[in-house]
């Protein structure tokens, strides 16, 4: 697993974690601090480090909350936090 830091800017394949459809896999690129530094730090502590593999396991019928496999754990996030994580789709 790579632990390389995020590239400077979003590429064409970068999208928010929230945009993943059920079953889609991706790799974390970076965590934006649009929700504040504390939230960004917490996302990192929850496992959203750059390079971590994520998969969308469940989308609720109302769009929020969403369940993701993040590295070794499964996590439920609401749309706000899931929107703050940038990922890159894995082929």
């Amino acid at each position, binding site marked *: 697993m790579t632990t390389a830091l995020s590239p400077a800017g979003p590429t064409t394949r970068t999208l928010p974690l929230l945009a993943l459809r059920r079953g889609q896999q991706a790799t974390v690129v970076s965590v934006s601090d649009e929700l504040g530094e504390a939230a960004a730090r917490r996302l990192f502590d929850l496992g959203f480090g750059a390079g971590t593999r994520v998969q969308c396991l469940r989308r*609720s019928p109302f769009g929020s909350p969403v369940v993701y496999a993040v590295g*070794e754990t499964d996590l439920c996030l609401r749309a706000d936090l899931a929107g703050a994580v940038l990922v890159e789709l894995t082929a």
Partner: protein
Amino acid sequence: MSACHTDGPALATHEPTVALVGAPNSGKSTVFNHLTGLRVRTANYPGVTVTHSVGRLGGGGDAVQIVDLPGTYGLEPASPDEQVVRDHLDGTLSGAPRPDALLLVVDATTLRRSMGLVAAVLALGRPTALALTMMDELAAREGSVDTDALGRALGVPVHPVVGHRGRGIPELRRELPDWRSWPTVPVPPPTDPHEVAGWASSVLESAAYRPAKPSRNTRGIDSVLLHPVWGLVVFAAVMTVFFQMIFTVAAPAQAWVESFFGWLGDLAGQAITQPLLSGFVQTALIGGVGGVLVFLPQIILLFLLLSLMEGVGYLSRAAVLMDRVMSVSGLDGRAFVAMLSSVACAIPGIMSTRTMPSSRDRLATMVAAPLMPCSARLPVYLLLVGMLVPAGATWGPFGVQGLAMFALYLLGGLAAMAVASLLRSTLLRNGGLHFYLELPPFRVPTPATVLAQVWDPVKIFLRKVGTIILTVTIVLWALMTFPSRTAETAGMDDVDASAYVLDHSYAASLGHAVEPVFEPLGFDWRIDVGLVGALAAREVFVSTLGQVVASDDSDNPSGTLAGLTWTDGPKTGELVFTPPTIVALLVFFAFALQCMSTLAVMRRESNSWRWPAIAFFGMGTLAWVSAYLARTVTLALM
């Protein structure tokens, strides 16, 4: 701070303290319970509703105090609740000494994720050891780690532990008194997210860490439990069983407690000839103790079921399913179970909020929970609906009595959500925590942890809440018994005598005194006396009212009540229980927080009288205004 004068093992301040630090679901509480046994006290942090547990290393050797800190994913506080934990670690809290050493508890199946917390704890520069839990699960899911190499790479001793089998616990027990020999890391690891990852990778590589594969069982079960349709079906089934258990197991047990204390009271009443003393022992003392113990079956069963559901991992799945619904009220999915439990009784419901990580969510849930239609309201609703609606009345295929009951339950549920929403947008806005919830793999809960999770609320209820309930019962008994009327009631039979005493008691004076307040709602002073009695428990309203009007059948006084007329004022001679008054009374009971036991438990759980006061007066106002409106509308419709 309340921690200073709480019960539990005698704690000398010079005793060294080891704090357990770890993420939620890391098995930290299991390790704590294994090390300390049941002699544990729970203490509040000042200013927040978060608690920590303090126990002592059992067995011989040097005495070591063990503190179980709230589970945390990182040491950078994201809310006031997490700030106090950080302050506790730093030793800047009064009453909670700075821990001398730290025992990190890390789930081996989430080792990489946990490295950020490990780095932050090691950077504190305190003597540290690490307990690596769930080692059996790591192996079962085809992962592995060399614990000795991990210890060398981290620079602290690492102890593999299998909590539910107690493996590795004896070694930890021997290790803890030796905390002075635990190393502090000479070069603290980086804590900046950009640098942690590299450090973590090199440490894990030298420990030959092979991560666990996703648990197939968990994924399979979750594909059903979290399914948009099947998940809700299972959820509804689980909640139905949960509720059925409370009503079919706890309710008979409660009835036994009640009839046992009723029998004991009768026995005492016959044995003691002095009438006042006999009444005191029978009603105030034995009745009061019974009134405390009657809650125990519900509390034990509810916490047993909650602890099992949490231990297995279902509670977090339920929270995911209910999150969208609960978010309407400004709360999150975790508040759902507390609200649902409050339909049985607000007391265990309020106590169950302690698993909620945010103080603000917890307080909003506590204050709103008593609006849920609890089972003590049922006898009152049954009496009043029975008087309002003829038994055979139908509306389409539905009985009107049933519809009225349904409407009252709906009213309570909606009011609870509305009040929680109001609080979260006013007094309790800006929680600081965004909602996230880990879904741990399904696991078999350890009996020791389940036992501890049931025993803790029972102990707190008996010691802290029971005393308040007992005191209130004695005061209410005195209000309804004094001044003594031995001379006046000499020649009367029992029913008339007890009615006479009550009608001329301090409670009656109180009823007369508050009559102007409740007169606009159509309540006369006798209803007001019933409301005073209902302070002990809502269902007492029925028997108190029965006693006031000297009904022959004080448990079902509807016949006598129907003929009751005003004895004074401009309405003298008119019926008291007219439909508008009954509707107002129903609405009043739906909203008012008259239950002193609920206020006592709210005081204990929120660690201040502020929130019980806000709830009591806020809901009292809501109840009065709504009852007045309901009466006005009913009058207009008639």
